């Protein structure tokens, strides 16, 4: 099939960017969206132009690298799929496709379609872990966890950190990402000792990074390639409120 592509080109972080239009022929329905970009880049290289920079790696939907707004949708039209899993059979001959990078001030553009998602790492650094050093862990079966509980934790833990939730959110909120980690660890016995401090620190780090607030629009859950439920945000809010209330108690006591 033959396609017209409007692609965001921005040579560097601080440089101005704009949409450039390319036509591409010989696209097969079996190609992934990224393979279609490989073809475009081969064509641009042959024409002596600079190829489009885009983030990609595993190309099987798990590394979370790929990140494209396709016709205004994060990862394109297929539900529960990263851009690398989107195949060209989702499109038809003659289509015009607009491709842009994730847009959020907490994800500065690096070049073309590549953004820097280091802010996600800093949210995890704020408390997205169990504080346990290597060595000396007790036998794994001494911690009993119900099958349903672990399945629910796994649903949340499946987050690939791609940032589609942020890109899809009108407020550029990172609540789905943060809520997923808080839910994963909050469901498990191992995560209990730090549950309050984790919720407080991670939520506060989201603000520091410049992500917007969640207004429960729900676009994040629609865009998520791992179909993580917006329920994780409910859990995050609950943990944050409980932890905030506990934090304020001593203050109230000293005031009285």
């Amino acid at each position: 099939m033959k396609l017209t592509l409007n692609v965001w080109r921005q040579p560097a972080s601080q440089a101005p960017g704009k949409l450039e239009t390319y036509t591409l022929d010989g696209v097969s329905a079996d190609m992934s969206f990224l393979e279609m970009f490989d073809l475009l880049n081969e064509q641009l290289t042959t024409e002596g132009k600079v190829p489009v920079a885009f983030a990609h790696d595993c190309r099987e939907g798990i590394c979370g690298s790929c990140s494209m707004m396709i016709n205004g949708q994060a990862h394109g039209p297929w539900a529960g799929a990263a851009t690398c899993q989107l195949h060209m059979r989702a499109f038809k001959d003659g289509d015009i496709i607009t491709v842009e990078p994730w847009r959020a001030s907490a994800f500065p553009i690096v070049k073309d379609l590549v953004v820097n998602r280091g802010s996600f790492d800093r949210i995890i650094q704020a408390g997205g872990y169990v504080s346990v050093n290597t060595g000396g862990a007790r036998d794994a079966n001494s911690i009993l966890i119900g099958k349903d509980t672990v399945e629910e934790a796994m649903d949340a833990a499946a987050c690939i950190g791609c940032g589609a939730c942020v890109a899809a959110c009108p407020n550029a909120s990172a609540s789905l990402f943060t809520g997923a980690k808080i839910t994963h660890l909050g469901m498990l016995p191992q995560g209990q000792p730090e549950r309050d401090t984790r919720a407080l620190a991670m939520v506060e780090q989201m603000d520091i990074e410049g992500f917007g607030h969640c207004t429960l629009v729900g676009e994040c859950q629609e865009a998520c390639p791992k179909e993580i439920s917006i329920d994780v945000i409910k859990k995050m809010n609950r943990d944050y409120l409980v932890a905030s209330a506990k934090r304020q108690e001593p203050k109230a006591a000293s005031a009285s």
Partner: protein
Amino acid sequence: MLDLNAKIPSGPLQEKWDQHRFSMKLVNPANKRRHSVIVVGAGLAGASAAATMSELGYKVSCFVYHDTPRRAHSIAAQGGINAAKNYQNDGDSIRRLFYDTIKGGDFRAREANVYRLAQLSVNIIDQCVAQGVPFAREYGGLLANRSFGGAQVSRTFYARGQTGQQLLLGAYSALERQVSLKGVEMHTFEEMLDVVVVDGHARGIVTRNLLTGKITSHAADAVVLATGGYGNVFYLSTNAMLSNTTATWRAYKKGAAFANPCYTQIHPTCIPVSGDHQSKLTLMSESLRNDGRVWVPIKRGDNREPSAIPEAERDYFLERKYPSFGNLAPRDISSRAAKEACDDGRGVGPGGLGVYLDFADAIKRLGKNTIAERYGNLFDMYQRITDENPYERPMRIYPAVHYTMGGLWVDYNLMSSIPGLHVAGEANFSDHGANRLGASALMQGLADGYFVLPYTIGDYIAGTKLAKVDNTHAEFKAAEESVRAQTKRFLDIKGKRSVDSFHKELGKIMWEYCGMARTKEGLTKALELIPALKAEFWSNLNVPGSGDNLNQALENAGRVADFIELGELMCRDALAREESCGGHFRVEYQDAGEAKRNDDDFAYVAAWEFAGEGNAPILNKEPLVYENVHLSTRSYK
């Protein structure tokens, strides 16, 4: 010739690691913060090593070319991780895991390393659970297990089809915790392009910042390479697109021996290639073979719909040929059997390069819900890629390049032939022999990172007198200069062909002549084709753009340049190894289709030594000594 002393501790197999741990020197806790370690790569091996060494008190710097350590390709491992816990009471033990791994590797791995791996497997599961890894559980709350290719016990722990992801996120969270505690300095978007050797010791690395093009160097007391495998030499593989050999290859050129480069694992259950546009191959987890039955039509060229082919006209070839292991035969055996069926004209799907993996019986026996619960995400993935519904129609699978058992040579301490340069995970050669069993790569990456390197690097640091060296030393400046010069050279060629076109051509040569089956004739031919390709690469390459910002074509040019040289070494190694073992199948050496090993002449590790540009590399041999297992013909019948 190199001194290939493997430094295997003496004493009984079961006590080697304990004795060694006792005999290793310790670094005083107060002194650890004075010592610095560089870790390149942050997958299972790198992240776990960096986090653990930081916990111990060392100053750690960790480098990744990704935007975050969580993107490392360990994330893509699906099926599981082995551990000799014997929770299922089905006869498992450390000794049995050790034996299965040695046998699975076709008796081409080191006994002592593999035994240690089996011992540590038990601690890995405990550590990961403590971190909050959500392994699958039984209703009573205990951990669940399943079986994997090459084993008759259920010892594989899993988190749906995303085990690698969950284990990596566990190690990543430990690493990020250390970053927040300022024990690890994380360098993202930095690609290592050279190792710096001062007075015979590895003392640092040179990196290029992928965003700015800036080339800098970094000094330390020890360097760890945990940079993964080199399967992308074949272009099409299950590896992530950015996985490459550059770190290991540049270390080889600085004096680190490259061991057994020809050992490539071909995984039997990948989605077949759909066309020339294909950039990578997608694996279907081996765990599918617990319930899926592999078959082809008995009749050649039978292109009826699978449902129209009656039972009597199907050949369940794995069950027929290997009745005791059946569909769970190891990867090399299963891959070769599939290739044989397709070579015989009985393959299915476009081009006849595919066999069926059929769940109809399992769905009938267990119900669709149970199958969906076990493998749902894999079935969805398959449908997305092929547009076929595997609940209704058997999957089509074909073997594909998956894992490389070769890598930099290391001793028992995981130190390469350059003192101070340690190598972990898939980047080293040590534990899998000529074939890797399922669910053993995750085990090795984490064992190396959590439980081996933190000890052995301490021993190296405590036992070595290291002069004060920083990155103003002449060796650093020289290494930086050569990296700058190479970058400039790529940009200056201004030829006509893209980097990708060279990579694809190399991949075709490698798959054709150094793939699932190798012959003397084919390898000799490849050894003519590759140098010619190399010459064309250096005269007709086109790298658009500049070197001072993000330039993915430029990054790739360096990696493909290294792949071309590595490809040549792989063919050389495959040619020299006149036997068949594990993933290395030399057509001339077989016994009715089964690999025919030659222990008298080839029970050694082939460790290749760089002898300068334009000179043939030198083959060093480390004999493999088996004191605890009997070198027997591998049988899965």
